[in-house]
């Protein structure tokens, strides 16, 4: 059986070699339009000369995010997929427990029409929604920037304030504490209720927990990914309800269980 195994292995190897040779043939047929796949050169944390990002070890930085230049990110924060934090001409400080959600852009201005140059400072437990654009602003602790909002230079969003989705906040606007500003250009809409203020800090905590799950998943090595693929395939056809009808208790492998604090429902049950 040993020699048979070896024979099959060798044949498999020949087939792969043939495949690669045919691939080379096909590439030469494609000639000028041949596309050679290259390794990704995207750098998640990138220095610009002497300015290097300083990112705490608990922070989830998505691999497709770009943190460039003089950026500091405090603990428990998360920078989600596709974000760009460009601290090239000035510095960016992101506090702890903050989440900068997918496809957002945080940039600083070097020269401004009014002449002021401002670093961008984002406080603790801030939620910056998807695709927000924050340019040279100060966002204080526990504020909420809605998705798609654009905050221009010099804007100050005070503690517990909310910038509604899709709003455009013009230069040097100050958004007072506890208010919701919306629209293009952003104007005062209404005051935040206490419930909503509590919700802001709760959402920041939820996101920190969610970030840990994503961080764990993104950091996995090739072997771990393959192993989990196999596990998932095995468990694809097993339905919990059907099993409970049969009286079978099947254990989901620990690799496939999400931590309980991720889904708010389960977290609430745990607390009870």
């Amino acid at each position, binding site marked *: 059986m040993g020699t048979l195994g070896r024979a099959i292995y060798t044949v498999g190897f020949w087939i792969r070699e043939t495949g*690669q040779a045919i*691939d080379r043939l096909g590439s030469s047929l494609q000639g000028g339009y041949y596309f*050679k*796949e*290259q*390794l*990704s*050169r*995207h*750098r*998640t*944390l*990138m220095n610009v000369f*002497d*300015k290097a990002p*300083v*990112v*705490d*070890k608990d922070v989830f*930085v*998505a*691999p*497709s995010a770009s943190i460039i230049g003089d950026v500091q*990110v*405090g*603990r428990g924060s998360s920078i*989600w*997929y*596709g974000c760009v934090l460009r601290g090239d001409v000035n*510095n960016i*400080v992101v*506090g702890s427990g903050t989440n900068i*959600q*997918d*496809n957002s852009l945080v940039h600083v201005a070097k020269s401004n029409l009014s002449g002021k140059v401002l*670093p961008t*400072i984002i406080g603790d437990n801030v939620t910056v*929604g*998807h*695709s927000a654009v924050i340019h040279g602003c100060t966002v204080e602790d526990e504020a909420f920037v809605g*998705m*798609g909002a654009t905050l221009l230079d010099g804007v100050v969003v005070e503690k517990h304030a909310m910038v509604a*989705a*899709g*709003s455009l906040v013009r230069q040097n606007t100050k958004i007072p504490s506890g208010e919701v500003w919306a*629209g293009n250009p952003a104007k005062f809409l209404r005051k935040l209720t206490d419930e909503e203020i509590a919700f802001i800090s709760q959402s920041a905590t939820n996101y920190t927990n969610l970030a840990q*799950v*994503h961080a764990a*998943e*993104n*950091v996995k090595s090739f072997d771990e990914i393959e192993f989990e693929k196999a596990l*998932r395939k095995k*468990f694809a056809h097993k339905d919990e309800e059907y099993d409970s009808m049969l009286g079978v208790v099947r254990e989901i492998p620990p690799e*496939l*269980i*999400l931590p309980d604090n*991720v*889904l*708010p*429902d389960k977290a609430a049950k745990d607390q009870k």
Partner: protein
Amino acid sequence: MAAVARVSRRALTSFSSSAQPSAFHRTFSAEAAKAAAITPSPDRVKWDYRGQRRIIPLGQWLPKIAVDAYVAPNVVLAGQVTVCDGASVWPGSVLRGDLNKITVGFCSNVQERCVLHAAWSSPTGLPAETSIERFVTIGAYSLLRSCTIEPECIVGQHSILMEGSLVETHAILEAGSVLPPGRRIPTGELWAGNPARFVRTLTHEETLEIPKLAVAINDLSKEYFQEFLPYSTVYLEVEKFKKSLGISI
């Protein structure tokens, strides 16, 4: 002589650039405390040759892409995401189904740089999954959060659909429209603005154009789909790379 001038200039610029942030750190004293509190990890990966994975399974959830759907390599699908037949997801989009399900229906397209997310619960009390039915065109740079888009609609570019929104059949949203939470767009109407307001009803001819647009984009996506081999050949580059660094394969 010139070298000395260069070195002194460089020293001067580095001095001035370091002086400026310290001045800011003194005025915002909280920042100084924060700067001291950050403990960077020496293990943090600054560059991963694998890049960003397209499909990110979370726990038991595995995003599913149909065999003839074009999903750009740039896209991130995480959690419970299903991309149905003939659908296309264009570069830069992020479909994050970590709290709830996301479905992209038959022959629909999610264009560049969209973010589709699903909240845990919707203010309307209905299921908070983001479901995009068949023949829907979601314009570039849109943000969809826990909304339902019924068959044959067009959502304009850079639009924002918040939790619980419902866009009914044959509706068109102009570019840049913002739907507040729980807004319903009735059948066959054109809405625009921030917040979205009714503009006019659509003529029957315009209604017929909607699925044609989705099919046209489907055809375009097939051309993009053909550019990619079923399996990437980047493993050859990885092997070459590892050999050059002396790492055993």
